[in-house]
């Protein structure tokens, strides 16, 4: 999953958790999912911080 996809799923999971009629089982599951996504995102950011963004030059062959 790309960072963007992870952030999008995270938003979705949080939204689901905010649904007042969610069951505790679902809520727990969503919580686990959210924490996992957050940790993965953070990890990805940490990794990216180690290296600068890559710059490629697109030219005609």
């Amino acid at each position, binding site marked *: 999953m*790309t*960072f*963007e996809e992870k*952030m999008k799923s*995270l938003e979705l*999971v*949080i939204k689901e*958790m*905010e649904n007042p009629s*969610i069951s*505790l089982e679902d*809520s*727990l599951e*969503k*919580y686990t999912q*959210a*924490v996992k996504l*957050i940790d993965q*995102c*953070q990890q*990805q*950011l940490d990794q*990216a*911080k180690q*290296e*600068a*963004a*890559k*710059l*490629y*030059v*697109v*030219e*005609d062959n």
Partner: protein
Amino acid sequence: MANSILSVSQLNLYVKSQIESDANLQSLFVKGEIFSFHKHFKSGHLYFSLKDETASIKVVMFASSATKLGFMPEDGMSVLVKGNLSVYERDGVYQLYAKDMIPDGVGARQIALEQLKNKLTQEGLFDHAHKKTLPAYPQNIAIITSKSGAAIKDVASVASRRYPLAKLYLFPVSVQGDLAKPSILWAFDKMQSVDIPFDVCILTRGGGSQEDLWVFNDEQIVRKIFQSNIPLVSAIGHEIDTTLCDFVADMRAPTPSAAAELVTPDIMELESSLLGSKNLVFRRLSAQMDKLAFQIKNSTHRANAAGPQMKLERCQNKLDGLKMTADNLFTHSFVEFQSQLDKCALRLDGANPLTVMNKGFAKVTHQGTAVLKTEQIQVGDHLKISLTDGQIDCLTTEIVKDIKR
């Protein structure tokens, strides 16, 4: 042809052929100011004159060429006309047949720009409805600018610092001069054809004269941007310079660095928002658990009031009552029993031989048999008298019977 008599038509035809055979008159650039401008509404042909301080010439531009113009000529506009000279035989006038025309001079160019802007506005190219949303987390960022300018350095450094997750792709182009237009058009085509899903594009160049930035007002480039399905941020020249590319762009930034900031999220903010999300989901979950705990407590209470627990308690109470009754009964009977026992003991005490003996009575036995009557004994018998503290052995010396008995 000398001395011969010609018809008017013949003369005009001759002049026409003379003029058309002169190569110098067939590919001309003529500069002048437009006057008596007229557009034939049906055919679309343009008729006007060009003049300078001392002379004028008639010009015709046919609709086929006129529709390709990026601006609408008008009286007073200075223009540079490309065309060829010929003769209109009917009237015997020579005139310029224009193939192309560009505004000449700052004033004219400005008018042309305004016209193009109005035209494109009317076509809806600058409508907000067409503006694309910038992606929140761009993975692939296209940058169309000069390879050697300061703009690419600024964009790369800001984008890299703010969002190192992104990949930056530079499409090196000329940003001024004759090569600018074709290279910028190339970049947009290349951006579509290359196999990279670009999330966003930055079109930028640093500050320059209006002349330098002019290419960014080009109709073809503006249309290219409009057709592109990749969100575009423009940052052309300084903030005060506004080009048509800025109008058609989905977003405009005042500088190349600002453009990079617009298209990238800030990693610091991202990190704090991730932390915030973590707190949020935790709070959400604990709030739910608290609520459920409260509900459970509440339900237990209600269930107990109506349910088996209460029954059980009632049974317990009953049982306790019964037990108490039983205890009472038991205690009572024990006391009764004790008092009976005490009574018995008292009676028993009265019957205890020791009690009698304590009063001076003794037990008399002869050969282990209690002596109750005198006739059991003869003189000379040894009798045993038991007292409380021992026995006395006696010898019978005399027996006296009570007369009464």
